[in-house]
Structures are given as C-alpha cells and as structure tokens.
C-alpha cells in the first residue's frame, strides 16, 4: 500500500480514495470543506481569545469601580471594551465568561450524547419491551416543550453551573438516543453482527466492541453540533436569571437585564451576543463539515 502511494506521488498523480486510511480520508475531505474550515478557524480564534486572553490582558473581571462614573464606560485604554453596569471591566468578563459558557456547552453536550448513546444502544440492541419502554419514555420527554421546563427545573434545582449542565443534559439526551437506536437497528442486520453472535460473543461485547465504534462517527458530529445548542440554552437560561449567578460571568448572564442597555450602552449587548453567535456558528459549520466528511452520501 505504502509503495503505491509513493509511486503515485512520484508520477505526480493525484492520490485516489484507495490510498488513504479511513481517518485520513475523513481528514482529507474535511480540510477541503470550505465552511468547515471557516468554522474551525473561528473556533480556534475563540479558544485563543478565551484561554490566552487573560494572560495578555490582566484585569479582574469582578472588580467594580465605584460610583456612577465607573458605569457604562466607553472603550478606552484602561478598559478596551468599556465597563458594564457595575463598573466591571468588560473585556476581562468576556474572557472568563467565555470559559464558563464553553465549559458548560462542552460538558453538557458530551454527557447528553453519552447518555443518549447508552439508551439508544440498549434499546436498539435488545429490542422488545426494553425498546418499547425506553422509546416511549424518550418520546414523552421529547413532547415536553424544552424551554419552559428548563426554567422550571432550573428554579427547582437552584442556580449555578452544575445545575445548568444537569438541566441541559436532562433535555438533551433524547435526540442522540433516537439517532443511535436507529443506527443500531440498521447495523444489527449487517452480517458481521450475525457473525459475532455465531462465534458466541456476549451481548455486552457485541454492543461495545462492534456496534458502538460504528456509531462513534455520528456521535462526534452530534456532540459538535450539540455544543452549539447547549451554549444557546445556557445563554437563554442565564439571560432570564436562572443560570450562572453573579459575580461569575457567562456570556449569557452578561446579557441579563440587557433591555436597559439598549439605551445606555448598546455595546454591552453586542459583545457577548456576538461571541455566542460566532462560537455557535463555528461549531455548526465545523460539525456540518464533519458530517459531510465522514460520509458524503449519508443523510443524517
């Protein structure tokens, strides 16, 4: 195989699909997907901003400047993004708020994907009453309008980072469960599962060794796009006051009570909102490109 590749390169011939490994192929397709690369670029920028930023611009995100003069300052050298309604440095809050928002998004998405995958695997593999029961429950949960219940749960469980993650996960696993179950059902029919069965592999082994790796690709895409969704959820919950609490910043709670800012200081609405928008956009672009790269023909 390797010699063929070298040969092709020597003759200046383009490599064809037979000359790559699976991961190599996916990567190759991904790098050629324009939107995905734009998304990746945006994400890298955001990550650098949020993690490297505080090393460059050292300011305390929670330090308040007293008095009216401290509030709603216009960007200056002392405060490149100005100050907010409590006289705090906005740029610093953007850094740390970003970290929290990204953290919540990431953890929520991964957790709900894993839980959903577990439910889907079990339901799909065992079928029968287990499938029925799990899917009924999934359908019921899907019927409940997410947003009002998110608020309800948030008010019940209290306010804070971990509570938000829990809440988002409680409402996020269903989509992946359905997805994985469907995939497992179709994979189950394939011969290599029958073969594994025939040589006496246990249910557990078949599920984890054979079925799960094949759902991995789908799950990775789902997680990527899920991070975007989770970030928007967090922003919405925090906006209404149920999420991340003061003095901690998140991009969402920086927009809390933002209606008053329209008149006083519009940039306080633009900065965090734009950050959320660009982050989610980046994840969506990248996730979409990933989906196309993994299987250009598959309609997920």
């Amino acid at each position, binding site marked *: 195989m390797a010699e063929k590749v070298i040969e092709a390169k020597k003759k200046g011939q*383009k490599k*064809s*699909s*037979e000359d790559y490994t699976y991961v190599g192929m996916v990567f190759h*397709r991904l790098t*050629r997907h324009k939107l995905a690369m734009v998304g990746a670029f945006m994400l890298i920028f955001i990550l650098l901003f949020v993690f490297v930023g505080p090393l460059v611009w050292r300011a305390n995100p929670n330090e308040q400047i007293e008095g009216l003069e401290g509030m709603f300052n216009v960007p200056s050298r002392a405060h490149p993004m100005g100050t907010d309604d409590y006289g705090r440095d906005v740029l610093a809050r953007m850094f740390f708020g970003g970290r929290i928002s990204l953290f919540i998004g990431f953890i929520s998405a991964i957790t709900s994907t894993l839980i959903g995958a577990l439910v889907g695997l079990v339901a799909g593999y065992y079928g029968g009453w287990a499938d029925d029961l799990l899917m009924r429950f999934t359908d019921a949960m899907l019927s409940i309008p997410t947003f009002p219940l998110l608020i309800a749960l948030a008010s019940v469980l209290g306010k804070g980072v971990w509570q938000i993650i829990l809440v988002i996960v409680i409402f996020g696993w269903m989509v992946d469960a359905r997805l994985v179950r469907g995939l497992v059902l179709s994979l189950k029919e394939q011969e290599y599962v029958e073969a594994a069965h025939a040589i006496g592999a246990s249910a557990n082994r078949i599920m984890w060794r054979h079925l799960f790796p094949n759902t991995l690709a789908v799950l990775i895409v789902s997680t990527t796009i899920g991070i975007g969704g989770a970030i928007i959820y967090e922003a919405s919950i925090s906006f209404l006051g149920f999420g991340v609490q003061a003095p901690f910043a998140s991009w969402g709670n920086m927009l809390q009570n933002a209606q008053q800012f329209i008149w006083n200081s519009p940039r306080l609405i633009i900065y965090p909102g734009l950050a959320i928008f660009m982050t989610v956009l980046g994840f969506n672009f990248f996730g979409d490109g990933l989906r196309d790269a993994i299987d250009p023909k598959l309609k997920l």
Partner: protein
Amino acid sequence: MDNREVLVDIKNLRTFFYTEDGVVPAVDGIDLTIHRGEVVGLVGESGCGKSVTALSILRLIPNPPGKIIGGEIFFHGQDLLKKNEEEMRMIRGDKISMIFQEPMTSLNPVYTIGDQISEAITLHQKIDGAESKKRTIEMIHLVGIPEPERRFSQYPHEMSGGMRQRVMIAMALSSNPELLISDEATTALDVTIQAQILDLMRGLQKKLGMAILIITHNLAVVAEMAETISIAYAGKIVESASAKETFKSPRHPYTYGLLQSIPKFTEKKTNEPLPAIEGMVPSPYHMPKGCRFNPRCPFATEKCREEEPEILELTPGHLVRCFYPIES
C-alpha cells in the same frame, strides 16, 4: 454483411467522470453499430462502461460529475451529441427508449402506473384524456398484464417486480420507438420471471420491429436474444461479432475466459474447479499501461504491457482488439 439501414452508429465515444478522488474514464473509445430491427448485445462485467454507454446515447449522464468528452453518436445520420436539450427530449421516450435495472425503484411511487404510462403517450403523441387512457390500457394488455383496466389505477407498490418491469416496457414502447435500450432490465428479477420478460421482449420485437440494445453481464441472456454481440472491458470494446461466431469461436482472451467459466450442461463431469479469469477488473483510477486486459491475460507479452492494441477486423463482421487473437 448487414443490409439493413444503420440506425445508431457510435464512434469513439468517450465519457469521463470527474470525481473528487480522480478522473474515471468510464467509456474510453467505444464503437458500436446498431441496424434497424437488430438485436445487439453489449456484454461485460460491472464497471466496464456498458451502462454509461447507454446513458450517453440518450445524454442522461449526470453532470456533474460526468461528461461526454469525445466521439460521435449518429442516429439516422445525425450526431446526437450536437443536438440541444429540447431536441433530445423529443427523442427520449419517442424514438429511443430505455428501461432500467431496478423495477422496484424505477417507477414513481406516488402516481398510478396508468398515469405514468399515459404521460409518456401524451408527451409524444398529440392525444390525451380518454384517447390516451385507451391507448395506455392497450399497452398494458400488450405487455401481458391481465385485467388492464383494473391495473390502470394501481400504484407501483401494489405490483410485483416482474409486473413493474412489464409496466416499464409498456411505457418505453408506448410511442413505438425505433430503438429500445434495455440496461440490465432482467438482472434484478428471479430467473423464471427473467425468462418471461425476455420472452415478452422477443415477442414484441418480432411484432413491432424495433431494434434492441441489450446490456447485460449475463452471457446466457445474449445467447438467447442477440444477433450481434459486443464485449466490453474497462471502457473499451474488445470483441464484436455475430452471436454465433462469439460463442463458437471467441478470438479475444477475455471472451474466451468468460465462456470457459460458464458451467456447461453437456460436458463430462470432472473434479476440476471451474476455470476463472485470474485477477480483478482494474480500478478506474489506476488503469494498466498498454492493453487494459494484460494483467489478467494468460497470453500477455511485453508488447501487451507497453502498447494498446487497435481494433482489427479478423473476418468480415468479427472485430477484435488484441495483438495475439486466439486461433479459431
């Protein structure tokens, strides 16, 4: 020699596919002649370019990624490749019709079969309404489907595969075309149904007199149906002769290999394995240098690996593309 008028004359057709992974020379210099009323077989393994040739005649190649980049396809002396879309549209379904391999998916599931056949009639003949319905029912009857009036209002999923293929044939022949292209039309059917459909086609050909281009990988099918056979390999024609000649004295090593690998009823029983052609069809991205068959040819020489052979007419009507054709 054939004194019938030449209906379709394909000269040096080249249809390439430009994909992300490289260029696929699906059809790379194919010549084919079809006379009025002649039944021609185009035989070859998967990927040899036979279906692409058929689609090229009707200019149905999906673009992207495919493109007809060279050659000429003469129909009644006019080059189809130079016609515009509107002119082609009038030929499709009217003068040249095509039926496809998968009867299960080739019919639109949301319209009745009566509707779909009538559509073909209305498009090309200036009749509609009750008149076209009448003609449609005649066609349904012609292809051997019982209770044509009842079937008119049925949907494709209410019919079996064999019956759907009959519907396809009815649709294709509704305007009495001069050429019917059958692209592996029986491949997806049960053997018994296959036989029925072939019988039907043979009967209709005698009755209506159209030419048929039968595309298949199944030699038994062409043995039954075709007058002339062309064998395709890796995008080129490697042998072309009358059916009788092809089976009696194949001259190209590939044809010879194909015929050898068919289990024969009359041969004495031996314990030897069925001879198969060594190797695999070349990848379209890595075509071998020289004669495309050389990696699998038991008789290949250095010349075969370096140069590509041209088509030669060994005996009248018998063409072979090989430097060392087998003695007859």
